Each structure stands twice: as structure tokens, then as C-alpha cells.
């Protein structure tokens, strides 16, 4: 019985329908869609390329600039460049700690440029890529017959980080500057802070007419290193 039915089904011929008009219409529609899809594809590729470029600009270029910057600072350019490198090498970490806690400096953070100084230790002494207006240097205190150990010993007695400015230690500090005309602005009134960084290093901050100076007195080498912030 089922075999007969199977044969019956095998013989079935499906009637075919045709619609040439619809076929043409549909083909045209599909071609329009094809062009739209192509344009969309192009846009997607463009967007993808743009996002790659964006990532490149956002990550790779700053990284390269950072590396270049590091490299350029490391290479000796002039006397000041050498000094910066020197200070960074020896005192960078300490200076940064001081800067973070120094109220006087924090007050001046409103200045955009100074913010840069704080956030990036590398550029502390750099202004518009040059050092023209920044006075900085180092001098050997022995040349001035000064032994900074005395000062350190004196200040150490106070046993605190931020030292009280008293006539004893101020006088000692002023001795260092008295023979140098460049620093005639350093006096009892302009010295704002004496900070005992460690056993051999003392920081003297000086503020005069909106200029801010930092002197680092290193008793180990008997040297003074100084620089002015471009406020």
C-alpha cells in the first residue's frame, strides 16, 4: 500500500511560477543594497583605520616622546643640563618628596607651568625647552672656606625635619652665601625653610619677589647645588 503511495509521490511534478518583472525589480533592489553595503564596508574600514591611528596617537606617540624626552635629558647639552642630570641622579627622589610636602610650593600650584614641574620631575628645571631664565648651578664650598658639616651638625641637633629658623642656624646658612654676590638676596627675611633631608643634606628654600630658590647643601661633598623655579 505504502509502496504504491511512494510511487504516487515520485510522479509529482511541481508547477513552476515565473515573474520576470519581479525578478528585474528585485535584482535592481539588490544592486542598490550591494552598493550601500560596499559604501558601509569602506566606511567601516576607514573608521577602523582611524581608530588605529587614534590609538597610535594616544599611546605610541606619547610613549615615543617620553622615551625621546628621557634620552634627550640624559644627554649632556650644556652646563645647566649637566646640573639637572646631576641633581636628578643624586637628589631626585629626595627633592620630589620635599616638593610634595612643601606648603609654599603647593600654594603656587595654581600656575600651570608649576603643576608640570611637580608632576614631572624630569621637567622641573626646563622652561620652553631651554634653561635661559633658570639660574642654577653648583659651587664647591671649600673655595669659599666653608665647611658645611658644621651647619649640618648644628641643624641635626634639632632632630626634626623642618627646622626652626633661629639665629644660630640662619647665621650658619648665611655664611655660605655671604661671599657670593649672586645670592645677596639670601637673608634672614627671605629664607623660608630649612629642611633636614638626611644626615648630610639640607635644603634651604628662599623666596624673594615671587622668585623661589632651592639650595641643597651637601655636607658629604661640601657642595651647594641651587636652582630657581620659574614661577
Amino acid at each position, binding site marked *: 500500500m505504502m509502496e504504491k503511495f511512494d510511487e504516487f509521490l515520485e510522479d509529482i511534478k511541481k508547477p513552476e*511560477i515565473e515573474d520576470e518583472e519581479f525578478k528585474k525589480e528585485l535584482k535592481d533592489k539588490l544592486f542598490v*543594497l*550591494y552598493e550601500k553595503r560596499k559604501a558601509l564596508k569602506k566606511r567601516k574600514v576607514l573608521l577602523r583605520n582611524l581608530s588605529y591611528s587614534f590609538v597610535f596617537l594616544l599611546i605610541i606617540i606619547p610613549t615615543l616622546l617620553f622615551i625621546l624626552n628621557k634620552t634627550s635629558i640624559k644627554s649632556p647639552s650644556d652646563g645647566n643640563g649637566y646640573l639637572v642630570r646631576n641633581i636628578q641622579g643624586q637628589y631626585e627622589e629626595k627633592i620630589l618628596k620635599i616638593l610634595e610636602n612643601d606648603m609654599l610650593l603647593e600654594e603656587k600650584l595654581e600656575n600651570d607651568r608649576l603643576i608640570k614641574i611637580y608632576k614631572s620631575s624630569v621637567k622641573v628645571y626646563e622652561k620652553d625647552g631651554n634653561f635661559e631664565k633658570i639660574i642654577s648651578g653648583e659651587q664647591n664650598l671649600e673655595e669659599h672656606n666653608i665647611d658645611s658639616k658644621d651647619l649640618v651638625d648644628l641643624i641635626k641637633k634639632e632632630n626634626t625635619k623642618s627646622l626652626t629658623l633661629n639665629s644660630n642656624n640662619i647665621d650658619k646658612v648665611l655664611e655660605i652665601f655671604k661671599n657670593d654676590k649672586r645670592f645677596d638676596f639670601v637673608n634672614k627675611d627671605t629664607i623660608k625653610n630649612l629642611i633636614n633631608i638626611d644626615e648630610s643634606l639640607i635644603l634651604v628654600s628662599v623666596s624673594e619677589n615671587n622668585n623661589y630658590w632651592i639650595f641643597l647643601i651637601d655636607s658629604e661633598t661640601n657642595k651647594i647645588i641651587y636652582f630657581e623655579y620659574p614661577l
Partner: protein
Amino acid sequence: MLDREVEKNLLEKAKEDKDAFGIIFEEYFSLILNYIFGRIGLKEEAKDLTEEVFTKALLSIDSYKDRGIPYSNYLIKIATNLVNNFIKKNSKFILKDDIEIEYKEDLLDIEEKKFFYIQKALLKLPLNYQNILTLKIFEKKKIKEIGEILNLNENTVKTILKRGTEKLKKELEKDETFLKDFSL
């Protein structure tokens, strides 16, 4: 039907060249329209669904990968899914004998009448039977091909085909007009 190698090349070309896609469309338009029409028996709806099939095919042409089955079967696969959704949504409407409108009764020859009865009876069966029986009876597909189109193994296809044929026969036997025209 296109030669498999020619078809492969055309499909690759169609990713960038609309004329290549146009050749594929020309080749399979009639096949898909008539497959769908054979499933639902409604010409206008068959045209709408055909449009959907080719739109989907066009939008997925970039990601299409030849997995060893002819593109015609890939299109039938898309069509089957669309038809199944259409039948699910419109089963009551389809079963109202509206399919007869598509044929002019007096012009039907014996072969067409046969087809008409079978189509009507098929629409009363569950979709999985409809899928397999249509591909076998109307499209004359082999068991293996049916399996490829519907993602079923050959044994499952054979089982469903056997049961489906029995169900179809029972359904036809309920139709007195059919029994008048044909004896089983």
C-alpha cells in the same frame, strides 16, 4: 545549476563585484521562488520571502564559506528557515484553502491537481515533516542533501521521511475530493 568550481569562483568574486552576485541571483532566483511557492502556495508572499532570502544572502556574502555544499542548498536553507517562521505566524491563514486562489481550478491538469492536494495536506503536518517531505517530493533532493540543508544526519532524515509519508497519506485519505480524483 552552476558547475561547483564556477560557482565557487563567482561567490568569491561576488564579495567585491555586484555583477558576479547578479549572475548568482539570475541562476537561483527561480529555484528559490518556486521552492517557497511550493511550500506555502501563495505567490505574493513567496515573492516577499524570496526577496528576504536574497537580501540575507547578499548581506552575508562576505562571511560565506564554502563548506562543500552547493550554494543552491545554502539558499534553500535560508529559505526553509524563513518559510518555517512564516508558516508558524500564518498557519491559520494558509490552511484556509486560500492556496486554491493561486490556481485556476479549470485549468489544472492532473499533475497540477496532484501537487495541489499534496501541498495542502503537507501544510497540515508538523514543520519538521513539511521540511523533509517538500525537499524530497517537490525538490527531488537526495537523503544526503536533505541532511545537509537541515543539519540532520541521514538516518534521522530517513526516519522522519518514513513517518512523514505515512502521516501525509493519512491526511490525504481524509480529503474526500482527493479520493474522488485519485485512488491510493
